């Protein structure tokens, strides 16, 4: 088992689904306490509220409020448990499809408008 540096090899890395579809980046790494043991990685999070919270809690709250206003908060930020990570190489590849998450909610919301404007 190779060594993994969280900040270098996981955080901010591109995340793709089982079909190599871009889901975003690792916007936050969630650590959990284990009684009497060292902290361990529980999950990764993807989404503007997780990303904003890393910059400043206020930015995170603004991102969350915007998601609420546009009714996009369901399932966001997307939290993926570590056991759904298939491998970490150039990208973090997940053992799930984009449709199982809300990672592409904004993309899907915008798609009909863009399709109509671009003619395809």
């Amino acid at each position, binding site marked *: 088992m190779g060594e993994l540096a969280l*900040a270098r090899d996981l*955080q*901010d*890395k*591109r*995340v793709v689904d089982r079909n190599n*579809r*871009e*889901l*975003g*980046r690792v*916007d936050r790494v969630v650590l959990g306490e284990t009684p009497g043991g060292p902290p361990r990685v529980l999950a990764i999070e*993807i989404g503007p509220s997780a*990303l904003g919270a*890393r*910059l400043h809690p206020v930015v995170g709250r603004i991102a969350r409020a915007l998601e609420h206003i546009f009714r996009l908060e369901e399932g966001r930020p997307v939290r993926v448990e570590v056991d759904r990570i298939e491998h970490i190489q*150039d990208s973090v590849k997940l053992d799930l499809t984009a449709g199982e998450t809300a990672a592409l909610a*904004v*993309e*899907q919301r*915008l*798609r009909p*408008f*863009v*399709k109509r*404007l*671009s003619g*395809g």
Partner: protein
Amino acid sequence: MSAIVDVVLGIVTSIGGFIEAGSISTSAQAGAEFGFQLLWAIAIATVMLAVMIEMSGRLAAVSRRTIDAAVRERFGISFQWVPLAAELGIDTLLLSAEIGGAAIAVKLLTGIGFLWWVAPVGLLVWLILMLFGFSVIEYGFGLLGLVTLSFVYAAYHLRPPTHDLVRSLAPSMPHHDLVRYAFLSVSILGATVSPYLLNFYSSGTIEEKLTEKELWVNRTTAYLGICFGGVVSMGVLVTSAMVLGPKQIIVDSYDQAALMLVPVFHRWGIALFACSLGVGCLGAAVEIAINAAYAFSQALGWSWGANKARSDTARFSAAFTLITLAGTLIALLGFDPLRLTMISLALTVVIMPVIVLPFLALMNDDRYVKTHTNSAFGNAFLAGLTLLGALLAIIVLPLEVLGG
């Protein structure tokens, strides 16, 4: 064979795509006010751009990452928001300056006030982005931009004294108005080494699927294309120095700059200037708008690419739509496009270190560029010029703005 075609096309389009609002305005002003004396600034800035473009292509070809994607990975969002915000801010200002420049070009051809043309130009930029792929954007404007060679022909036709040209390639102190001279040299640097070009070029390398084995294509195109492109900028400066300088015409609007081609091309002079300005500004506006969308999408991990169906990259498409709208609205406020260009260029040089220095760190990280790391000379050359330019810009920008 295909690689050789790529190289030739890359060089030709680099020449055609070199000139835009910034390079025309700075070179025209420098020539009119200081003769050939600021040729050295174009020469140094051109070499600097060629070095940076080669590096950005090398990073993308070897790491399969664009600069903004690699900066996010390597330095994290807590650092990246600074260069990203700076890049997007400058991109918006430059975009409005380019839209204004293209609108002025139409005004020169039609005689109808430029503000009437701002919204149609903005709409045209957006339509091009919505409908065409990367190759059409890159090569189409590059080939149309060959009209800017009229500046090189004009400079040659006017027979400038060769020894004066050669002497001007070495920096020298001006005989008058030191602050203005320093401001123009900073603006020339900003006009030539626009940060948007770096990420645009690295994104183009990914779009064109250039690989590590084709680094020679990248190197040849970058050095030859950019250096020949610099000759077009020099053509503007020399023509301006030969035509506008002796008549003591100070270029404080594009209308005055347009006069420089008249002695050579006579009644076609204004039209040729307008076509050069129009094609250059429109091409730059498209590249700036798409680069802002590239930067945002790559930093956030969205699907991106001018060669993909727009409906498969909806957030990317929304990003270039929004920035085009913002640039158009700023241009509609009616700021003088030439003045807006000059201030944007000096600000570009101020923010350059936050974009160039992390880029240099990537170019020395073997996790990204493997064995193709930078030479010590390349690092020192770029870091030194970037910091020196920023320091000079911080000093002269307030003096220029306060002095009007």
